[in-house]
């Protein structure tokens, strides 16, 4: 029998039974000592741990007894980011956490079939933080609601927590490939090929959006006032983290159901995971003192794991490639047929035949301070001609190039920084009035550690990839692609202080052969 995860906003009330039982389970976990593997804080540290930050937010005190060195080495600081392991590792993390909450629920007399709800902020009128998480009180008015954390500052840094819909998107679902190239082209739906990656350089498609942005928008704060959700080393301490990640996990299932999607990787390194090449295993504490070791391959089939979601319907919009081919002058019927043909075999790791090539770059690193930063990307004439040629050939049966904006070596000290990127907004215009020119929004989840040479980081910062094919298509269709430069504007959600030291090493544009 499957355990079904359901939409938190559609459970029948702000404090519907599954939410109430979740709160009771969280309370039980929070009552356990840090050193216990099934404790709330222990599970949070599995995602990430930073002694100084934990002390700053009051989650580590002088009387806390740390777990054994063996437990820390086995379990803590495992989260996979900037990696093709991002989705499978977090799926296992959810399953382990859910098992522990369910165990506590059952011990308290609750339902054995309790399942973690998910928060689908994309559904109309469901982008507000679910009320049970926003109230410091239990439904009876008594205080100490374990689902509430004060260190959740929201997108406007005023404690009102919601997900602004202009800051998130589902564009990643349109990427047919799970694996990204990491060389300037698509970062893939699931991420780039890495080893064990507790903080990789290039975030994958669904990791960048909506994952990173929801973290930064919900957590808010800055490098002094730490919002738990904004920082990888604190995020697992916020009860809403788990509902957010259940939604990300659900989106994996949604993606698999999109006809153009090529499916999960089948290469041995992904299937068998980093332990197969001598790196750390993915392992979770489970109820009853047990532990569970899993591989990405174990996570691929959700139904075999005994789980499903109440809604995995793909977006009903016209498939991206169909819309694209139509933009480039291909009749609808032919566009549909060609889109299906391009989808390729469902079991292929299809990045092998895709190559990316630098098309242009700005001249020097860019500091992001205040309300906006601007730069210009100079295009190489010869490479631009290749793009134009591929576009022109699309009408005759060719596969048009895709074009990607890269924000390379992004450094900074505040993970809660969120900003949008626009291309060619006319001078004097408000970028927000040009959604058609928006390349995307980015949150710098994990940037501080990527900037400092700590843990597994070399200090190069993060690199983000945004698909700007739609903008280049529009330029081409309007006959305006014959330009030497693209003008890029970075617009932060909130003004960025100088103390955040946010900079982008290089902004570049790459073409990818389909």
């Amino acid at each position, binding site marked *: 029998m499957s355990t079904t995860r359901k939409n938190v906003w559609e459970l029948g009330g702000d404090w519907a039974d599954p939410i109430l039982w979740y709160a009771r389970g969280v309370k039980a976990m929070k009552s356990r000592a840090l050193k216990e593997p099934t404790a709330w804080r222990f599970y949070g540290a599995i995602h990430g741990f930073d002694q100084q930050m934990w002390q700053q937010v009051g989650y580590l005190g002088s009387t806390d007894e740390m777990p054994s060195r063996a437990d820390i080495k086995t379990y803590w600081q495992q989260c996979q980011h900037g990696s093709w392991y991002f989705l499978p590792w977090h799926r296992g993390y959810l399953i382990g956490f859910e098992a522990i909450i369910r165990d506590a629920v059952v011990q308290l007399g609750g339902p054995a079939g309790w399942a973690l709800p998910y928060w689908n902020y994309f559904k109309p009128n469901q982008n507000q933080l679910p009320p049970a998480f926003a109230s410091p009180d239990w439904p009876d008015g008594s205080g100490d609601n374990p689902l509430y954390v004060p260190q959740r500052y929201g997108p406007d840094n005023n404690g009102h927590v919601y997900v602004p819909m202009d800051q998130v998107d589902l564009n990643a679902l349109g990427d047919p490939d799970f694996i990204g190239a990491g060389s300037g082209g698509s970062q893939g739906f699931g991420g780039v090929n890495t080893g064990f990656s507790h903080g990789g350089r290039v975030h994958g498609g669904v990791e960048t959006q909506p994952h990173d942005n929801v973290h930064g928008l919900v957590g808010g704060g800055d490098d002094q006032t730490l919002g738990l959700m904004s920082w990888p080393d604190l995020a697992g301490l916020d009860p809403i983290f788990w509902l957010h990640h259940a939604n990300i996990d659900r989106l994996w299932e949604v993606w698999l159901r999109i006809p153009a999607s090529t499916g999960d990787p089948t290469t041995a390194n992904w299937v068998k995971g980093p332990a197969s090449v001598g790196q750390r295993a993915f392992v979770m504490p489970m109820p009853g003192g047990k532990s569970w070791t899993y591989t990405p391959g174990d996570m691929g089939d959700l139904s075999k794991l005994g789980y499903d979601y109440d809604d995995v319907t793909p977006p009903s919009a016209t498939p991206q490639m169909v819309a694209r081919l139509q933009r480039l002058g291909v009749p609808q019927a032919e566009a549909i047929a060609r889109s299906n043909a391009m989808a390729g075999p469902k*079991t292929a790791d299809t990045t092998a035949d895709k190559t990316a090539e630098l098309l242009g770059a700005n001249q020097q690193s860019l500091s992001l301070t205040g309300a906006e930063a601007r730069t210009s990307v100079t295009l190489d004439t010869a490479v631009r001609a290749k793009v134009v040629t591929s576009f022109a050939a699309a009408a005759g049966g060719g596969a048009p190039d895709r074009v990607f904006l890269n924000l390379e070596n992004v450094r900074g000290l505040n993970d809660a920084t969120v900003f949008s990127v626009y291309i060619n907004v006319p001078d004097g215009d408000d970028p927000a009035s040009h959604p058609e020119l928006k390349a995307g929004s980015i949150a710098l989840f994990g940037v501080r550690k990527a900037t400092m040479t700590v843990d597994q980081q070399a200090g190069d910062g993060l690199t983000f990839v945004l698909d700007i094919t739609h903008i280049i298509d529009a330029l081409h269709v309007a006959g305006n692609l014959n330009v030497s430069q693209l003008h890029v504007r970075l617009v932060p959600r909130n003004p960025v202080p100088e103390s955040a030291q946010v900079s982008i090493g290089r902004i570049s544009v790459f073409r990818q052969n389909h």
Partner: protein
Amino acid sequence: MANTARRPEAWLVVLASIGLGAWSMLALGESELTLPALCSAGTPWGTPPSLPLDLALMLHSPAKLAADWALMVAAMMTPLLVAPLRHVRDRSFVRRRPRATLLFISGYAAVWMIAGVALQAVALAALWAVPAPLPCLGVAAAAASTWQVSPAKQWCLNRCHRQPQLAAFGAAADRDAIVFGLTNGTSCAGACWALMLPMLLVGHAHLWAMIAVTLFVCAERLESPAPLAWRVRGAGKALRIAAAQTRMRLAPQGRLREVLP
């Protein structure tokens, strides 16, 4: 299953050919006693212990020493160039890739040639000052061991993993490729110098020492950056790979159904 097998990229083939060519020359050279000059001559196995320094230098001209050192670096370091060169090439215009590759290698090689002068001078001086071989080798091995566990070694290793932003156009792109080569070469020399020094002192076992050091530095480069600390570090990942493969075959992992309540 996926077809991730791609034809090897041409630049990788060239790089591998250079490395293999250098190894072949060294291997062939050993039979003719033309290994890197210092190594075959500057030790008790190949040289009278009381050979004066000026005579040693006369027998082994700086040009010969430099040529042999370059051959050694080409053989040992080419595997370490794959990751930084991939970064250089990925982030450069296609038409500039050969140029950027050469510029990076020029910077990298320049650092190693300078390091070679210093290391060979130290080795020659050591052999001249302490004719007895074992104390000389022992001191070098002790220095290598100390450096190996030091935070400074980790600092160098971490910097070996750096992938900086690179300008795309014109002179700035050339400058960045050279500077990246220089900085990567400096980090690499900083990480490896202490391993190279005893290798210069082992005499006729030199080729085997080279192979061992090459395997070791390639294996330790597989490790991720880590915090600076005094710590035993080495080729653990290669060993962990073998151990993990064995463990996975001997003990199947726990299944989810067995651990759920």
